[in-house]
């Protein structure tokens, strides 16, 4: 092998190691503790975690030290502390953290599961470093809805300060903005266990001072419906998802903002409508089809008193003809109910 090939090989190895480090892959020797291997050799949990069965909400964590290991491993391969290489510091830190943020007693749980620790610590068998039982595991015994969904402080000291990641709630794994509505509809009390009402009203309120992603501008990873250059994109975004804007905004919001920034035709600005928008029957006359697709955008500027603009051409007998499309049906009385009476009323 020539010298350049050797250099390239070394460089690739260094690069691969660097990439692995960046991506979070752990080098050999920094692995989760070998719980599975110990269990398969018949070592019971309490052999190492002595005293855990009677542990209360406070006190030591009952993590075994080097002396406990050496009670079996009489000839260790070196004199260093076993925990330097066996088991992850983050796992021990998580156990210490759980002691602070959770109210939990092994004392009361161990008899209930008849000493079967794996009943709750199910991930032990997979050799993972996540040893704290997931909340779904708790729920497999604590089935009463009220216990789980309305009384967080029975287990969590302060769930909102805890900053717990809801890894058991599938909603947070994907596109939160799109999914949260459909999932919160049925299980809003679960959302409320972590989120105060101000979380919802921050976007869904009638008035919003600044959307969360705008107020917390220093956190670019935060999801938000109006992220980054939304102001430039918003006409495209609105056309791409008809009706979405209306789920939060009143139609008048469009007109208010355009008027304030002098962007509408009514304030001397340029009309937003392209050529061919309005015309006699037989001409392109695009406004009809656009209004069927996005009526809320029309209502944004032409709502309220502006509706008379439409009535002028489309009232019964006028030149514009019927504005209703083929799918239109209504249970309203044409001559008396709003808005029908504007075009069908007897005093036209």
């Amino acid at each position, binding site marked *: 092998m020539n010298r350049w090939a050797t250099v390239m090989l070394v460089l690739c190895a260094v690069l691969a190691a660097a990439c692995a480090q960046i991506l979070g892959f752990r080098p050999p020797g920094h692995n989760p503790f070998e719980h599975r291997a110990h269990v398969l050799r018949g070592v019971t949990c309490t052999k190492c975690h002595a005293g855990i069965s009677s542990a209360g909400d406070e006190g030591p964590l009952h993590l075994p030290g080097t002396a406990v290991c050496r009670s079996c491993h009489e000839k260790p391969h070196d004199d260093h502390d076993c925990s330097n290489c066996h088991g992850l510091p983050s796992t021990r830190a998580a156990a210490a953290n759980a002691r602070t943020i959770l109210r939990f007693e092994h004392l009361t749980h161990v008899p209930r599961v008849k000493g079967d620790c794996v009943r709750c610590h199910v991930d032990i068998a997979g050799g993972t470093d996540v040893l704290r039982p997931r909340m779904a595991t708790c729920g497999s015994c604590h089935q009463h*809805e009220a216990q789980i969904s309305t009384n967080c402080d029975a287990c969590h000291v302060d769930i909102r300060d805890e900053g717990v990641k809801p890894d058991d709630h599938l909603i947070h794994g994907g596109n939160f903005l799109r999914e949260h509505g459909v999932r919160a509809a049925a299980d809003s009390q679960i959302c409320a266990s972590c989120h105060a*009402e101000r979380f919802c009203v921050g976007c869904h*309120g*009638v008035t919003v001072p600044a959307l969360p992603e705008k107020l917390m501008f220093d956190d670019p990873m935060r999801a938000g419906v109006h992220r980054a250059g939304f102001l430039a994109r918003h006409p495209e975004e609105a056309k791409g998802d008809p009706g979405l804007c209306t789920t939060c905004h009143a139609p008048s919001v469009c007109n208010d903002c355009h008027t304030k920034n002098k962007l509408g035709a009514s304030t001397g600005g340029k009309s937003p409508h392209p050529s061919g928008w309005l015309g006699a029957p037989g001409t392109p006359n695009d406004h009809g089809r656009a209004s069927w697709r996005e*009526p809320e955008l029309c209502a944004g500027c032409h709502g309220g008193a502006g509706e008379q603009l439409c009535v002028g051409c489309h009232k019964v007998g006028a030149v514009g003809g019927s504005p209703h499309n083929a799918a239109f049906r209504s249970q309203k009385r044409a001559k008396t109910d709003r808005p029908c009476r504007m075009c069908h009323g007897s005093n036209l």
Partner: protein
Amino acid sequence: MRHAVAGAALLAGSVTSSVSSAQYRLRADAYFSAADPSSGLLVLSGEAHKPSWLTAETVVWLGTGDHPGDVMVASVRARDPSGYIDARLGRMLVTAGAIRPVHIDGGDVKVRAPWGTTLEVFGGIPVVSNFQPRDYDWAVGGRVAQRFGEVASLGLSYVQMRETGVVTHEEMGIDAAMQPARWLDAAATAAVDLQTLALSDARISLASRFSKVRLELFAVERSPSHLLPATSLFSALGDVPSGRAGGSILWHAAPRLDVYGEGAGESLAAEPGAEALLRTTLRLDDRGLGALGLELRRESTPGASWSGVRGTARVPLSRLFAASTELELVAPDDPRGRGVVWPWGLVALRFRPFPTWEAASAFEASASPTAVSSLTGLVRLSYVLGAK
């Protein structure tokens, strides 16, 4: 060329309270944007620190100029310790099943039975801003739901809004959720406009999670004309729903690397469209305090297609400082004289000297269809009473 003043003034928010910090968490955020100097904001919010049988929550914001401020939430909540009865009174956002959230001044009572039945009733007058006319005079509604063990739930909701005695909006919703297995989660909602007996909004989501992959199938159908108040002339044009259906995948490719992809086909008033999104996030440490992100997006909408790329970075500089940046480039297929590319960028610095205080400042630069160039300074100062 529009060049906003690239300076920023500091607004100080302070909160004084006689309540114990152990009982309530109070927060004040002062926000200032140089692009709109007349709209400085002070947001004050408070909520119970720990759940209790009687709690209160409020969010108030104050502005200047065209934005004098508002009370967003001011409610008192009482509930029995077992969680069977929950009542709220005041200004609140009511989210009851499949019907749209309603922001009202009124009351909301929820009763849960041990066998999984939930009954909710709410009513009130609408919240409006700046004394604007109300879309309706009052609203009343409710929801009844039944949970079937830990596996499924089914709910039926209803809301009616009236103005001068006339029904302006009447909607019924049905919601369902099912989690037959730990790895499978399904939810669906549908809302029907009772004025025209037509579907106004329907959504379904089916998610499945495996060890390193989360898959989701979704579909949405929405009929804008039924989302408008029934008294609006534009609600009488007809029923032309738009819908989309697609799927997404989240792959934890490496311990610190997530890849998210989403694709959907659309029917926009019978015209076809499509959208695609690819996003990667690389955390720079195990806790994710530092992170890099890259996002590619393509929207194919008749008459409004565009492509975009966005890069983000968040880097802790020290125990006190963190820097972040964000850059977005959007290219519309049909510029129509609005510029070929619409760039947007932001550079921010955050300073957190104490757990209770936080300050952040940023410069935001952009070019858009309405401004050839724009440079804006942003400042935020936050104070949290009761933070650890």
